[in-house]
């Protein structure tokens, strides 16, 4: 109950400040509410757009959450999504397949990409106790540079008519590999269903199964886990890789559902937003869906503001940040404590 109150209060603060900012820009006091209305129920497609944004946020949030449950801070979700996106785009070119198979192949490839990029960090953490916060953060930068290099060298898109492409991107994926959209008027695609299924399965596993029990135990009490005969390092390693897999899945869904090619510099901040989604949900799998939906509304509102007003896009990001601050300025102790517990080890 107090939790609900907390979130309501945070939303109120966020709304107030956002309205204040818009009114300082010469808009009416209710303008932000109007933006919210437009961004959610303003048109038949607005709500679909919110869900479209919820999809990758849910998955990247889940990716962070899974690692956090075992006490790892996977700040590399960002890079893992990116590599997943590349892999998913490439497989479509390397291995043309009939409809359903092509989609599956893209998804599997994306997952493989995410796992691949999580692997070095996971191994270094497991085998050598190397701090994953640093390695994952560093590998984000490397992912961007390396993917660019790779695409430029081997898979650069060809322009119809022999012109020059300006940005680093691959050719469009095969139509077979595209995730079907529900309507041409919104980017919402079948990925939402996939994401929901994955999130539901993950929530079930984390909260109801032996695996979830072991992961929680490993994350919160390494010595208790050892005492209980849980293979601590193995579980943490596995969770790290699954985290990477989910990130890779997010990359694949964005690629196959929306971008339809790998684009250098795309998917910016998707991983970090996912981290915020998870942290605002206090790493609770159930709260995660709500949190992702909330961030989805926020993200769609950002776009609507830029369409409907002349307010600076930077100001819009400030407004989102304020919402996040309002939601977080509250005892989200859980994660901090996990971090401390880890330091004490």
């Amino acid at each position, binding site marked *: 109950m107090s939790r609900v109150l907390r979130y309501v209060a945070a939303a109120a603060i966020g709304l107030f400040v956002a309205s204040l900012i818009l009114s300082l820009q010469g808009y009416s006091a209710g303008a932000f509410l109007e933006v919210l209305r437009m961004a959610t129920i303003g048109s038949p497609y607005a709500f679909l757009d919110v869900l479209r944004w919820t999809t990758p946020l849910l998955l990247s949030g889940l990716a962070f959450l899974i690692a956090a449950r075992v006490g790892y801070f996977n700040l590399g979700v960002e890079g893992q999504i990116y590599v997943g996106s590349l892999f998913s785009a490439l497989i479509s070119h390397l291995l043309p397949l009939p409809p359903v198979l092509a989609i599956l192949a893209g998804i599997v490839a994306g997952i493989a990409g995410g796992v691949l990029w999580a692997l070095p960090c996971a191994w270094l953490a497991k085998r050598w106790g190397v701090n994953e916060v640093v390695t994952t953060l560093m590998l984000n930068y490397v992912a961007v540079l390396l993917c660019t290099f790779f695409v430029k060298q081997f898979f650069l898109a060809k322009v119809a008519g022999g*012109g*020059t492409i300006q940005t680093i991107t691959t050719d469009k994926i095969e139509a077979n590999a595209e995730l079907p959209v529900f309507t041409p008027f919104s980017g919402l695609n079948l990925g939402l269903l996939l994401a929901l299924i994955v999130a539901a399965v993950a929530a079930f596993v984390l909260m109801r199964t032996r695996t979830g029990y072991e992961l929680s135990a490993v994350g919160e009490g390494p010595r208790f886990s050892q005492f209980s005969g849980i293979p601590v390092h193995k579980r943490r390693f596995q969770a790290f890789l699954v985290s990477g897999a989910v990130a890779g899945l997010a990359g694949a869904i964005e690629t196959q559902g929306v971008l339809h090619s790998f684009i250098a510099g*795309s998917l*910016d901040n998707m991983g970090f937003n996912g981290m915020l989604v998870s942290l605002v949900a206090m790493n609770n799998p159930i709260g995660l869906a709500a949190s992702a939906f909330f961030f989805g509304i926020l993200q769609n509102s950002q*776009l*609507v503001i830029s369409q409907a007003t002349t307010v600076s896009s930077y100001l819009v990001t400030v407004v989102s940040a304020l919402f996040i601050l309002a939601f977080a300025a509250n005892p989200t102790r859980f994660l901090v404590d996990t971090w401390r517990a880890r330091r004490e080890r």
Partner: protein
Amino acid sequence: GESLNTSASSADSSAAAGGKSVLISSQPEGDAFGDLVFSGLQKLNGETGIEVKQIAGVQPSAYEQQVRAAVQQGYNPVVVLWDDLANVVTSLAPSFPDTNFMIVDSYIDPKLANVETVVIDPTQAAYLAGIYAGNATKTGTIGFVGGAEQPVIEKYRCGYLAGAEAAKPGVKLLTSYSGSFTDPTKGQQVANSQISQGADVLMHAANKSGLGVLQAAAAAKKTGIGVDFWQGDVAAGSVPWSALKDAGTGTYTAAKNATSGNFKSGIFTWGAQEGAELFDQRDLDGLPADLKPKMQTAIDDLKAGKITLNC
């Protein structure tokens, strides 16, 4: 206060003149090149009063939604900048036959009846910069700093190299990349590494990072060459030449045609022969007496189409 001026549901697609036009670009506002292109639309607004708007700073994964929203809000033509958005337009345009689209500064031509591609070629301006560099270098080594190794940046480099070789056969060109378009310090360091290898004229194609290149050149008493618009004021006295990319006028010309019922699909190249400005008159006026005629010849040749650059 002002209330919100649009609503997503009011999708009237009147293509008539006196409508409104929007520029969607992938760089956040304040991007100098995006502003340059938008200045073309603003000029149109000044002349005809049609409403113009710039939407900036969106992520690739939101492009499609932004373009779709622009169409639904009745903007016509919808102008987009660069390849990523061009690809989005390519896939969306068939669904919105009543809206005209302009793709600016891209070579992508989807060959659709409602899409026009406005090519603004940097190679000619870069060629002139090369002429300048070839003549100005004393060490025989010149430098080029790109923001990232991308095909479009290669076009600058290619034109630059062609000009330099034409002016001074056998000239040595150093090429480096700052890896970022927004980090002046990186640009400065990359330039310094070239300077320490003997480069004495440095051109950049690195947006804000390029400011650092010009600064480094000035600090080392070398010569810098500006890009995209006149940068003679960046490091006073040491940027005697800038390679302009006349995107504003190109966009203006195409958009004017589109809003006055003369929309033409296909590729529209805005180059020297079409009247694009490749340099700033101030720079030409300031050239030393021996160099000025050589430069003038190159300019005339470009305008006359006598020089073809294989870039």
